[in-house]
């Protein structure tokens, strides 16, 4: 089959590799019909995530048709499914508590060593996201082996277009969970750093959860425009001073809840950012963290900070004093996708949540390297790239 493989910083290629096979009883093989490039794939593209190996197949947002099932899979051939990016067994203590991204068993035993050393305990496996999270082949491919297929994939009713449901695989539940973690109360003002796909879903989710105002922060006009469409007030940090603006917009109180949907590649010319960049490039630090620092400083006393943004390692100059003195709450984590799927699918079917507005580019799988390049270089216009392996088949 053809698959998008990682070979190093800014080097991804479409290669021919062996087709996946059923290896365990609960496996299924999915023929991919749609697969997206995620903002967090750009962290891999930019070489920020350790434990990548040349030839790794990327992609963790995908859906498709069931073409083969193991004896213990509950799926049936021909069903259309969206596959969560978090792989979870459904039988361990954490899965029992619906903490699917903390699954004990989905990360292969040998790979768990890396995360155990770095984080204290290993997390679940993820598709296409380095060997620390399992080394699983990802979804930017024609076919994918999906382990624990009786737990993860959600069956999509006929007649619902791929574009409407594809983002159930990651970014929609990620945005929703982030808003839920912000513990929004009616009347709240919520500030969202980053209007990429996750940030935009945070905006939608926050309003659905009763926020009175949402302030969306970014520097790409196109993305701020999309946030405004959902009713957010916009703050362009290249135009305005973020902290000062937030304080004035909230009558000197600060936002009740702050959501960092930017993560370890925060942009902008800030002193701490430049310092972080120097440290990253000299291997003396890892994560660039301007947005989370700013969120903590801006947040009102006793407020909530939610962090769907991806961080991988250690940070410098974390404003621990502000965090403690103001009595803030911070909630974060990889998304427990499986927990949110039924509710969010229903919300899509009822028309309460729209996800199709995001897709700016649809490309063939063979064009994936170009997709990465434009997503990376033109973040204003390229809001989301969806790869359609079927387009290659038509061309061939």
């Amino acid at each position, binding site marked *: 089959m053809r698959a998008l493989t990682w070979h190093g910083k800014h080097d991804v290629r479409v290669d021919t*590799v*062996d*087709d*996946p*096979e059923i*290896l*365990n*009883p*609960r496996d299924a093989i999915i023929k991919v019909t749609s697969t997206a490039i995620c903002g967090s794939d750009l962290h891999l593209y930019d070489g920020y995530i350790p434990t990548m190996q040349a030839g790794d197949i990327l992609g963790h947002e995908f859906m498709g048709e069931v073409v083969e099932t193991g004896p*213990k899979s509950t799926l049936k051939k021909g069903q259309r499914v969206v596959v969560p990016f978090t792989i979870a*067994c*459904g*039988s*361990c*203590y954490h899965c*029992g508590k619906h903490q699917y991204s903390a699954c*004990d*068993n*989905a*990360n*292969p*035993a*040998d*790979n*768990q*060593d890396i995360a155990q050393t770095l984080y204290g305990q290993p997390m679940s*496996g993820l598709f296409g996201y380095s060997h620390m999270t*399992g*080394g*699983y*082949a990802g979804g930017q491919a024609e076919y994918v*082996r999906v*382990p*624990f297929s009786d737990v993860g994939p959600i069956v999509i009713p006929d007649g619902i277009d791929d574009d409407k449901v594809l983002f159930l695989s990651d970014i929609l539940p990620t945005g929703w969970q982030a808003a839920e973690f912000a513990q929004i109360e009616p009347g709240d003002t919520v500030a969202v750093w980053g209007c990429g796909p996750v940030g935009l879903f945070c905006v939608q989710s926050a309003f659905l959860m009763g926020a009175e105002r949402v302030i969306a922060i970014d520097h790409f006009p196109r993305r701020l425009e999309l946030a405004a469409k959902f009713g957010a007030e916009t703050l362009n940090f290249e135009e305005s001073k973020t902290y000062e603006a937030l304080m004035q917009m909230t009558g000197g109180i600060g936002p009740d809840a702050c959501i960092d949907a930017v993560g370890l590649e925060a942009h902008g010319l800030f002193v701490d950012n430049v310092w972080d960049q120097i440290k990253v490039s000299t291997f003396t630090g890892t994560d660039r963290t301007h947005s989370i620092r700013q969120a903590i400083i801006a947040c009102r006393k006793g407020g909530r900070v939610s962090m769907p943004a991806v961080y991988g390692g250690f940070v410098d100059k974390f404003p621990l004093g502000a965090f403690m003195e103001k009595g803030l709450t911070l909630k974060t984590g990889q998304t427990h996708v499986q927990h949110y799927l039924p509710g969010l699918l229903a919300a899509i079917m009822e028309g309460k949540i729209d996800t199709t507005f995001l897709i700016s580019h649809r490309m063939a799988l063979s064009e994936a390297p170009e997709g990465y390049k434009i997503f990376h270089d033109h973040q204003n216009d390229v809001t989301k790239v969806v790869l359609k392996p079927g387009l290659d088949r038509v061309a061939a």
Partner: protein
Amino acid sequence: MADLRDDAPITTSKRSDRIIDATENLLEAKGHSLVGRSVTINRPRAELYAYWRDFTKLPSFMDNVERVDVVDDRTSHWVVKAPGGKTAEWDAVITEERPDELIAWASTEGADVPNSGRIDFRDAGDRGTVVTATILYDPPAGFIGKVIAKMFQREPAIQARRDLRRFKQLMETGEIATAARTHKQLKEEIA
């Protein structure tokens, strides 16, 4: 000097002389390197004990064990992968056994890797069972052997940690997680 002893497991001690205590209290001593590791498994104690007690099944989750032959009620013969494509072999005798609770063993004279240990099964309420492995062993050919073994990841401490994870996966999910994509890759992984 004040007595700094605490309630932590003896296998986590920073002081090497405490290992001597371990050998006295826990095991019949067959070796000088001590490994301790616990895992909580969301299954009943009796089920886990029964699976483990059938030694012929152990290679299903112990990647470095080629096979275990049961000689009699108390004696088993172990064939284990060693660095460089070789194998190490020994006979092990059960030194203590309490159904659903404890299996302790020691290798007999002439073992390639002298070792002894115990597997404890303890109720963990809603969370299932805590399985604790305590293993005492002599690494092959002393220090150099240990370095080489570590390079090839046949180091008993690494193996014990991974084997317990695989045991948990097998008992909780009915399978052992793998990121392999094809049967060929899976075979190479286990080899």
